[in-house]
Structures are given as structure tokens and as C-alpha cells.
């Protein structure tokens, strides 16, 4: 059985209007709520499949509320959680990688090392594209990014993802780090049973091992929306001729 760790990040929902925190250095999710990236939801799904009934751990570095995201992953089949408590905005990708690496090493020293560590390809908020790669270097593991399917044969992971010339397959010796892109698997929905289990599942709380260096963020700004200059071509089926005329004007029809 493959012992898997998945890293997820609590991020503000951004389906509607985005508001910044009063200091202008953070995104305020207190009204819209919080979620994780679809890439990470797929990583959780892959972990549950690969663990095949065995132990699989979900980890986050985030504020107290990030326990909600851990519980959501526990509800769909992850078996235990690790919560490194801290303000994720104060951690650079290298800081996060260092903390995750420490947790991975601690588990190894306790005698039951993870075989596989899954992360999202890029976080939904900062989109840094690098925590997984930095983690792999910190641990001395091989890493593949942008993967959509994962299976394990003995001590080898078989990974596929989309490359420039088609679907690519990697065969990588475990332990390894893999970052996941949405699209290879459908994340499952939590069952009632799953939700009950998640409430009781063990979550270990850790403090960061060192003070984070920080990300170098100086400011955030919400760019103004493009001005509303829409020309309504008409309503319903009656607008069809205006549509065709517009295509002709744009040179799309010849």
C-alpha cells in the first residue's frame, strides 16, 4: 500500500468581487468564503485512489480556519490531517516547502515515511508554480509537475500529463513529489458517512519550525474592471441577423 501526503492551501473564494484586507496586503475572504484549488481537489482524489484504503494524510500550512479545508479532504477519504498553524501570506514558497519538508522528515524519522507527496501545480491565489519543486529539492526526491493521472506499481509511480507533443508518461522511483493539474480525475463528493468520519479524524497541530523569510510582497491592487462598452445586438432569435452582420464586419465571414 502506498502512503501518500497531499498538501492543500486555503484560499479566498473569488467568484464575485474581490476585496483586499485594510492594509492592502491580503485578499479578504471573510465574506466570500474559502476554498482550495481544483488542482488540489484532484490531488486529494488521486491520493485516495492510490492509498486504496490505506493511510493518506492531508497537510496545510494556514490560519486556524484552514481546519475547514482539512476536514473537507478528510470527508472524501483522507485518513488524517496535519495543520501547521501560521499566516500563509507571511510564508514564501520556499518557506512553505521548508515547513512541509520538516513534517515529511519527522514522519520518516518516526519510522513510517511517505512514499508519495502530492501538491497542486499552482496555488489558486498566489499561483507561484514552485512549492512542489522546492519541496523535492529540500527532500532530495525526484519531482514531476502538471500530472493528471497517478498509479503505483511496486516502488514505481506511473504518471501521465499533457506535454507539447501529446500525453507524456513518466516512471519515477518512490519516494517522489508530484504536482497535479485538474482534468485527469473527478473529485468525489463527500458522503454522509465521510462527513461523520471527518469530524473525528485526527488532526495533528504543529508550529512552524522557523520564522518565515516572507514573500517580498509589497502591495496588492485590484485592477479596475474594463469599462462596460457592450453593444447589445438584440434580444432572442430576432438578434440573429445582427450577429451575422457583425461577423461580416469583423471579417470572420468571407
Amino acid at each position, binding site marked *: 500500500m502506498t502512503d501518500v501526503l497531499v498538501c492543500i492551501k486555503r484560499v479566498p473564494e473569488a467568484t464575485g468581487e474581490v476585496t483586499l484586507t485594510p492594509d492592502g496586503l491580503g485578499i479578504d475572504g471573510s465574506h466570500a468564503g474559502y476554498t482550495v484549488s481544483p488542482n488540489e481537489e484532484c490531488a486529494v482524489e488521486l491520493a485516495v485512489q492510490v492509498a486504496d484504503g490505506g493511510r493518506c494524510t492531508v497537510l496545510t500550512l494556514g490560519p486556524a480556519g484552514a481546519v475547514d479545508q482539512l476536514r473537507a479532504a478528510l470527508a472524501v477519504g483522507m485518513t488524517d490531517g496535519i495543520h501547521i498553524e501560521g499566516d500563509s501570506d507571511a510564508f514564501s514558497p520556499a518557506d512553505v516547502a521548508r515547513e512541509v519538508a520538516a513534517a515529511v522528515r519527522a514522519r520518516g524519522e518516526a519510522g513510517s515515511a511517505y512514499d508519495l507527496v502530492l501538491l497542486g501545480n499552482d496555488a*489558486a491565489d498566489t*499561483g*507561484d508554480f514552485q512549492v512542489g*519543486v522546492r519541496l523535492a529539492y529540500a527532500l532530495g526526491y525526484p519531482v514531476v509537475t502538471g500530472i493528471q493521472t497517478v498509479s503505483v506499481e511496486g516502488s514505481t509511480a506511473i504518471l501521465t500529463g499533457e506535454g507539447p507533443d501529446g500525453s*507524456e508518461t513518466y516512471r519515477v522511483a518512490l519516494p517522489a513529489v508530484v504536482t497535479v493539474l*485538474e482534468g485527469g480525475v473527478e473529485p468525489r463528493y463527500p458522503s454522509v458517512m465521510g462527513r461523520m468520519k471527518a469530524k473525528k479524524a485526527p488532526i495533528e497541530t504543529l508550529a512552524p519550525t522557523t520564522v518565515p523569510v516572507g514573500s517580498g510582497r509589497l502591495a496588492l491592487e485590484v485592477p479596475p474592471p474594463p469599462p462596460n462598452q457592450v453593444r447589445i445586438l438584440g434580444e432572442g432569435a430576432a438578434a440573429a441577423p445582427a450577429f451575422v452582420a*457583425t*461577423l461580416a464586419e469583423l471579417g*470572420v465571414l468571407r
Partner: protein
Amino acid sequence: MILVLVEIDDGALALVSQEALTFARGLGEPVEAVVLAAPGTDTSAAVADCAVQGVARVHLVDGPDLISYAAAAWASVVAGVLAETGASTLVASGSGRASEILAHVAARLDVPMAANALEASPVGESTEAVGGQARMPDQGSDTGTGLLVRRQVLGGAVVESTLLAAVPAILTVAGHAVEPVAAPVAGAASVVTVTPRIEPDDLRAQVASVTPRSGGDGASLTKAKVVVGAGRGAGGPDGFGGVDALAAKLGGVVGVSRVVTSLGWRPHHEQVGQTGSRINPDLYVPCGISGAIQHWAGCSSSKTIIAINTDAEAPMVTKAAYAIVGDMHEVIPAILAALDKRG
């Protein structure tokens, strides 16, 4: 000197790499390029394109270990060129491959990396800010020294200013952050061949096999001149007949929202957005798509958008150039009939 990692697409320099070169030129230092291509690839057109972009030197890589792709091995090559040339900055497009290799380089050198840059300008030593298309926020003199980068976060809904203080500064350029334009004076683009010694550890994760595409992929979507979009408004898996017919009629392809893929109505490779493909067609016709930030992240570079939506207040409608307010299942058949009548 600025070093740019560039890629080849259809024999020539990839459009995103041309954008990265134009961006790099804006930083005011000479530009050199490393071409990410398997040894044996015909790079002559790409080298010529580099000259057009003002590139002084092109580093071409040779050696049997790089025939199939391994990110860590490529990172060791790039790190080698950085060390040898003493480049101040490493730039690439935000493609999957380029982002991966730059992340490896950043991890090996233990320096920060900024993804999805919109513009950048040196601050500190020189007081003159030269930038991509620099419109930098007012910064006090206490910002420090380094490269001040403005980059997209939250799928482009927010712009972050960040300072890359370490050398080399490493960054990827957001798609369409700059228009690729030829340099006022062509570069020499003199070719240097690099034959690297690759460590076995850097080949632990190497592509074992490639299955060529059988049509279904995101690549056709990112290159399409016309995309017809469909979202929840399609109503169900059987609601795409009109959209498919309209795309075919206009010589385009279908792109969908995440709601459509997560409900399993259409495959994920058709998804447009932050976690799907980024499209840049001449015409995008989103039907029954609300235009959430994460969808907009993938379609905002479309030249013209004509939205079809029952809700005149939907963000996709208010951001579009043109819109039809109505039920897509009535509007599209009428459009198809009108196109048929036209012949």
C-alpha cells in the same frame, strides 16, 4: 545580461517565447537565449526569430541525455549558462515546461521566482526605471535594490507588486502581458553550442514515452481563431448541438466553462480558464457562461467577444464588446439559419 529560455512551436519560435523576449528587452540589458529543444531538432527558424527579437547570442544544447525531456536536467543546463554568463535575470514564458524549469533553477540556486509577471523594472542603484511597459506603483526609496515586478495573482483578478532582490532575478511572463514586437535593430543571434554533463540524479524524472494526440487536446483550443463557448446555460450533456454546429460553421472549436467539465458534460481538455486553457482567438462567442473571474482568466485575450446570455447583467455580457440577450437554445438555431441563408 538577461537570459531567456525559449521554446519552439511548429518549427518557429513559440509566440509566448517571442513575448518573453520582447518583455526581456524592455529591461534595458542585452538579451541572450537558451533554446529548449531536444538535440537534433531543427532550430534554424527559431534562431532567425531570436535575431528579429534582438537576441545577441543563442545557446543551443547538445547531448544524448536530453533527447527525452527531463526538467531537472534542463535546469542544470540553464543554471550552467547563468553561471558562465553572469546573467542578472532569467526570464521565460509561463508555459508548463518553462515554469517547471525555472522553478527548478530557482530551487537549485535558492533564490525567489515570480510567476506571471506583467511588467518589471530595476530599482535601487539606477534611479531611472526602465520597464516592460512600466507603470510602477509609487515606491518609497526604502524599497531596496532589485527587480520590481508586477504580476498577476488570483487568476488575474489581483495584481501583486513584489521585489526580487536576489541575483539572478527569476520570472515568468504572463500570457499577452506584452505584444511581441521586432527589435529596432536585429540581434546577431550568434550560436553557441552547449554540451552539458548531466548528473544521473537529474534524470530520475524523465519522460518515458509520449502518446501523440488524437485530436482531443487543449492545443487546438489555444491556437483557434474562433472559439464558441458553452457554460451551464447549455442545460445538460445534450445541450451542445447548436454550439458544435456554430463552431463548425465558423471554422472554430468549442470551449467550455468548468461547470460543464465538472458535471461531466464535456471533457476537461475543452475547459477555458485559470485551470483550463488560455485562449486568444479573434472571436470568442461564450454562450450561457456567466464570466466568473477564473473563466475570464482564460478568455480575456480574445480580440472580440460576442456573449449570448439570458442575463444582461452577467459579467461576461458587461465585459463583452457585443452581446445578445436571450436563450442560447433559441438564439443559436436562429443564427445557424441566418448563416445558412447567407450561403
